């Protein structure tokens, strides 16, 4: 049992990790085929996991509906939406489920374009208000760092709109300099750490040093 729970996953992680690294450097067709094969396995695993995901989603919302938790009506809508989209996917614009899915016309595409896309756009547009409220909280110059942030943000924001150049002709250049020099330097510093961190994390997992993803840390 310990072999199945600990040793086997560690062996799989090691073998797959080494294969992944080797495939990156080997252009031979055998390496390409192996990589393609593993991608197919990944898709098969993902297909099974998707069933688990749908089951989990349904179970979550069914529990809410059954217990009539606050907002249970939204959970009911999940079932309605799921049923409608499943039926439209099977209908497939009159071509049935055995033909490739129609991606240009039909009720499934119509629902996606006229319900899902506007709903997504609505959520995305809310972001503008959230940015404003977050900026209001953060830009209060209570500390020197917050004051620097406030001044930088004002220069960059005003420098990016036509009125910036009207106020002072060098403002757009100053805004661009702030993006290209201090901002880029900070960004590259983070990227440097992220890249090395990714290498270290990959090594820890490949060599079985990091075992938290197995659930229990050290044995």
């Amino acid at each position, binding site marked *: 049992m310990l072999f199945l729970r600990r040793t086997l996953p560690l062996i799989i992680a090691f073998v797959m990790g080494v294969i992944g690294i080797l495939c990156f450097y080997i252009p031979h067709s055998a390496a390409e085929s192996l990589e393609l094969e593993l991608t197919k396995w990944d898709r098969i695993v993902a297909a099974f996991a*998707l069933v688990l995901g749908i089951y989990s989603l349904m179970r979550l919302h069914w529990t809410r509906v059954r217990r009539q938790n606050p907002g249970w009506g939204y959970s009911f809508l999940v079932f309605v939406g799921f049923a409608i989209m499943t039926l439209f996917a099977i209908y497939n614009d009159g071509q049935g489920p055995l033909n490739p899915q129609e991606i240009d016309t039909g009720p499934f595409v119509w629902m996606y374009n006229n319900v899902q896309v506007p709903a997504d756009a609505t959520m995305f547009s809310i972001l503008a208000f959230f940015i404003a409220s977050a900026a209001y909280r953060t830009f209060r110059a209570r500390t020197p760092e917050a004051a620097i942030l406030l001044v930088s943000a004002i220069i960059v924001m005003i420098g990016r709109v036509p009125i910036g150049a009207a106020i002072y002709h060098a403002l757009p250049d100053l805004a661009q300099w702030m993006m290209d020099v201090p901002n880029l330097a900070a960004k590259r510093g*983070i990227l440097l750490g992220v890249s090395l*961190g990714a*290498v270290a994390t990959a090594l820890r997992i490949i060599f079985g040093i990091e075992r938290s993803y197995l659930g229990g840390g050290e044995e």
Partner: protein
Amino acid sequence: MRYCFLFLALLFGAAPIHAQQPTGVEAIDTPNDSGGSITVTWARAELPDGAVYKLAVGESEHGPFHPINRSEVNLQSTDPGTFGHGDETHHRVFAKITEYADLADPSNRLPIENGKTYYVRVNAQLPSGETLPFAIASATASENFFNWSKGNNFVIGTVFSLIILGGIILAQKRDLFIRRIAGLEALDEALGRATEMGKPVLFAHGLHPMGSVSTIAAINVLSRVANRTAEFNTELRVANNDPIVMAVSREVVKESYLNAGRPDAYSEDMVFMVATEQFSYAAALDGMMVRDRPATNILMGYFYAESLLLAETGASIGAIQIAGTDSYTQLPFFITTCDYTLMGEELYAASAYLSREPKLLGSLKGQDIGKAVLLIAMILGTLLATVFDFDTLTHVFSAD
């Protein structure tokens, strides 16, 4: 006098024609590929407007030659991964050939086969339609076992791996100093607060799938969080947007509860699927935060535009928020709205930091040494390139 004119006419008339002829034509197997391609190179020449190079491939030196209609001729300096960074790359051009036209049916394309020798004919065609003398070179396509254009990446990756492994070995022999990470120090406090308030802890994954390092790091943090919530007997809710991440998270939480001696406290409903679409995920999580009002929000992984939607909603309900991401575009949003933020590599270091396990801490030390080496190389490279116009060190760290 007549002979003098004839001499001048020959001199000035013939010279441009010779300049337009392809010289130094060489054909090679295209390096660093899986075969099915040959590359032909020749010296760069100034052609009159409208003149083009014509390439043709034959299986024999004497023909027949099959035209190549879609060959792209570039300077070698445009592909430093294959031809290097030398000055000579500015004076030679190359064309990569992967297929040629079938003479019987020109619309049919025949692929370059591995192991077969091909003869490439190169000549220039003037706008008048006149074709200049040609040159022929031969090559055999084959599969390569190592991509030498990634050679520097391999060497640097190996050196950093050895430094990190060295750090791990060093950590087993003596104690190492690891700087304090406020976000991780506050984790126990945040979980304790949820316990005291009798409210749940919400753990939300980012949008990247299981193959992403940030997701693996988030899973590692989840394992430690689940261990603590099991010990504190606090309700944990783990939201996912990827079914595989959900399946792995479920196993991780289950194991953590088992290891904490609280298997009875684990329920499959603790780890659930929310939505696979980005904004559906954000909307559903926002709804959960507003309705269930968790005391602690932990946002870990790679986030996109939904980061602020989640963090700002969390801030509005008064939850303690700890976020961790390696997405530098979203870091400012988390920093402004969350109580603690793990920036970039701190997310990867979280598991090692929380466990205090020497081997894991050693890898962090190795990572720091690697960073110092890179910083020295950057400063040295900048100095050499700027002051001495010596850019070799820059190329060593270049991706192509």
